């Protein structure tokens, strides 16, 4: 067996879908090919890790609430509308509007809120709407004391980036380490002007032991 023959069989090998002869052939190849051996080890380790990947339990009260709504709706007592597309999209997302140079908002917008579960990583999506392409804008983030960017020690970070016209999505893998109510501050600067956005976190510690 050559390396080019091994790769297409990797998935079947991991899933135990090969017959004895094919397994033997692969085993012999892995014994003499360090690259394929490393690939196989990496793939097998990933598969083992996925197999034990935990999932959170529902937050306290959710199951009762969901069953109660379904019962009421089935009985015709309450019509529970599905959230609109935008509402669904915004459930874990936040749209921050910025039009540098033509930003005409004169009164402060209410600070939006995102719900996080204690100790559970959640991707929060920030959408920056730009009226025009911006080269080398500086984006700064200051995280509150109880929220961490997954794998990132500092709570303040700043980097330069290009924004295209329209929506620019930034995904932040966040995890809440405490329940204090505090705000994330995002600041976008370009050409001597800047705009600051605030985002409030509501951290629920229910079901912490579920992970």
């Amino acid at each position, binding site marked *: 067996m050559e390396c080019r023959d091994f790769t297409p069989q990797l998935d079947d090998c991991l899933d135990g879908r090969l017959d004895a002869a094919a397994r033997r052939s692969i085993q012999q190849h892995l014994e003499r090919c360090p690259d394929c051996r490393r690939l196989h080890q990496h793939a*097998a380790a990933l598969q083992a890790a996925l197999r034990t990947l935990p999932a959170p339990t529902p937050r306290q009260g959710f199951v009762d609430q969901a069953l109660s709504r379904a019962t009421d709706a089935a009985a015709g007592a309450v019509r529970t509308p599905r959230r609109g597309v935008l509402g669904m999209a915004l459930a874990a997302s936040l749209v921050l509007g910025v039009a540098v140079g033509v930003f005409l908002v004169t009164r402060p917008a209410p600070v939006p809120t995102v719900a996080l579960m204690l100790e559970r990583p959640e991707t929060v999506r920030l959408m920056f709407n730009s009226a025009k392409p911006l080269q080398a804008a500086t984006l700064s983030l200051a995280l509150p004391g109880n929220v961490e960017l997954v794998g990132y020690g500092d709570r303040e970070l700043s980097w330069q980036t290009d924004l295209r016209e329209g929506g620019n999505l930034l995904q932040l893998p966040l995890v809440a380490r405490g329940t204090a109510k505090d705000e994330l501050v995002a600041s976008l600067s370009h050409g001597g002007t800047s705009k600051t956005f605030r985002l409030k976190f509501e951290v629920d510690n229910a079901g912490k032991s579920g992970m």
Partner: protein
Amino acid sequence: MRPQVEYLYRLAWRFTGSVADAEDLVQDVLLKLYPRTRQLVDIEQLRPWLARVLYREYVDLVRQRARSPIADLAADAEGEDNPLDTLPAIKDGPEEHAERSGLRERILCALDRLNPEQRAVVTMHDVEGYSLEELETILDTPLGTLKSRLHRARRRLRALLSVEPFSAGERVNG
């Protein structure tokens, strides 16, 4: 019904990676199923059947978002070409740092980078343990398509996690 709701919630969370989306999906499925509760008693293998209903609801959600101007970006973010790649970080950005965190959190972040179909097949097969033959029915997708989808998903996960390859001996706690 409660254990089934918890099962649905777990799958919904695996599909979406979001508590809010998982709750919405489960609620929508329950609203659809409750008028048909009596029929559920006659279903032999309830969980795969529920998983199929949930997956269809999830596909509807993804399609609805794809039609929304905002959802365009959100949907793209889950494909191979992540819009974040168009926000180049001169210093290391959050994504790079995320890949250096604990294994479980890194895997969750990597799953977020898969497109919805890839994420569904990898979570149902590799995490939940359904066979590809079972997934033909649950995901309503031919076996050959599932195999190629799974192949691409695993390859992408390995690439996303290759910044700091983990050893075969590393284990996930919890």
